[in-house]
């Protein structure tokens, strides 16, 4: 069933169960600025969808809508089978624990150490003993190569380090869905590659579903053409002819609407002048 033809609000709960995120005819405006106007797409479980668009296109708003942090003016959003547009704030907290979010500006708690930031979810959920907690924090910090910053405050870190701490905080409980907001924005190529590797590892090793907002097309292409090799513990390019399904798709936003939603091949084969210019 094509979603765009679905009657708004008529999607049955069963249809959304096997999908990670479904947007159905979502519209959002601030006063008279229209940000999103009839956005529909779906993210399958285990899939990573890269979202592109110029600054101010509404990419961050899509992630915030998916978390239920803001409500749309129109349309419905299902996350792991729950309609977040209809849920009360009190009931959303439970669902949000299954979702990780990496904010564009990191949004670390600035009066807590890196340890407390990363452990936030574990501490909140309680019943994780102290040494176990410490072990898991160190493990996830090692994953983002920041183990030595454990006792520092966010203000003592560089922007790129903060971004990685923010990723560590989002993945420590291995959520089913991760929303990355420009995780490589404004970073050097080396750090960016590290972060892309982390995301690919999440996708291939932990089978996480994710939305990835990014300005860098090449990052998404790298992801679409690489896989994570668990034996050597590194990201490797896919050899031509191999049948690895990388589960990476692309979505381009323009003027509040989706102008492309498909695979890497759809993107390169496009006839649309705007998209051609975008990927040039």
């Amino acid at each position, binding site marked *: 069933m094509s979603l765009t033809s679905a009657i708004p609000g008529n999607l049955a709960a069963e249809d959304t169960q096997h999908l990670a995120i479904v947007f159905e005819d979502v519209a959002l405006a601030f006063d008279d600025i229209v940000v999103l106007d009839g956005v529909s797409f779906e993210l399958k479980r285990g899939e990573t969808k890269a979202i592109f668009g110029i600054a101010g296109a509404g990419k961050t708003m899509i992630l*915030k809508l998916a*978390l239920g*942090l803001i409500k749309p003016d129109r349309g419905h959003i299902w996350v792991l089978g729950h309609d977040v547009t209809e849920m009360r*704030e*009190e009931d*959303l*907290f*439970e669902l*949000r*624990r299954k*979702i990780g*979010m990496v*904010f564009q*500006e990191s*949004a*670390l*708690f*600035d009066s807590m150490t890196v340890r407390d930031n990363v452990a*936030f*979810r574990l501490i*909140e959920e*309680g019943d994780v003993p102290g040494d176990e907690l410490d072990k898991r924090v160190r493990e996830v910090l090692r994953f983002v190569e920041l183990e030595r910053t454990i006792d520092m405050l966010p203000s003592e870190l560089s922007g790129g380090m903060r971004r990685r701490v923010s990723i560590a*905080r989002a993945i420590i409980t291995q959520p089913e869905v991760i929303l990355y907001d420009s995780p490589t924005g404004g970073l050097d190529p080396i750090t960016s590659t590290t972060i892309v590797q982390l995301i690919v590892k999440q996708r291939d090793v932990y089978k996480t579903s994710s939305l990835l907002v990014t300005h860098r097309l090449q990052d998404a292409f790298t992801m679409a053409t690489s896989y994570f090799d668990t034996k050597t513990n590194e990201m490797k390019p896919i050899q031509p002819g191999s049948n690895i399904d990388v589960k990476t798709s692309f979505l381009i936003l323009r003027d509040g609407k989706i102008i492309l939603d498909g695979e890497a091949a759809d993107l390169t084969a496009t006839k649309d002048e705007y998209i051609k210019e975008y990927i040039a």
Partner: protein
Amino acid sequence: MELISPVDIAKQMVMAVQDYSQLAARSLSNVFRRPRYVADTLVQMDQVGVGSLPIVVLTGFFTGAVLALQGSNTLDRFGSLSLIGQLVSISMVRELGPVLTSLMVAGRNSSGMASELGSMKVTEQIDAMRALGTDPSKKLVTPRVLSTVTMLFFLTMISDLVGLSGGAMVSTLMLGLNSNQYWSKAWQSLVWQDVTMGLTKPIIFGFILSTIGCYYGLSTKGGTQGVGKATTQAVVAASVLILVVDFFWTRLLMTMIGS
């Protein structure tokens, strides 16, 4: 400057009052829900209670002292200077202890809460907390409300006592009264109505000043300037509300329990 219609202003005010009431109600109902943030509450108790102690002691002392000084003038004219203990104790316990302590703590802590939560709001830390599955009204607001209410209760008692001592100092050292006489008058004149009035006030005022501080913090908009504005507004709103509620609560109690 953009002109806003009076209807819009009225609508915004109604919305604000509604949002505030919801937050205030949530802060209370959270007390009965898990998780309970005991550690956060203790940190706040230290901030509000221990942190405010010096100014509360100073305010209380000098208020009691000046009450005795001013009162002596009037009482002397009627030749009843010995009633000074009664005057100081009733004024302190019923009115000035609770009100001045609350105003002091409002100046210190409503602003502190508004600026702390406001900074968290504008740097997306509040959103991050919600995104991590934690209810900011539970983790941030309820601990502040609980600790302010408890601490203000005790701070008011301290303020009352210190105020009485201030009065005692003036009465014995400057007015030449007998210290025993002062204290026994001060003590005997207090009836349970006075104490009820004096000790229900800090509970109400503590609730007001902490919820107002948190409300302005959580509804901060517009960067650092917005944080500054929220801070000022929180102190003003809390102080005015305390004085207004003080009048009505006093009136209500006087009809309910007499005197």
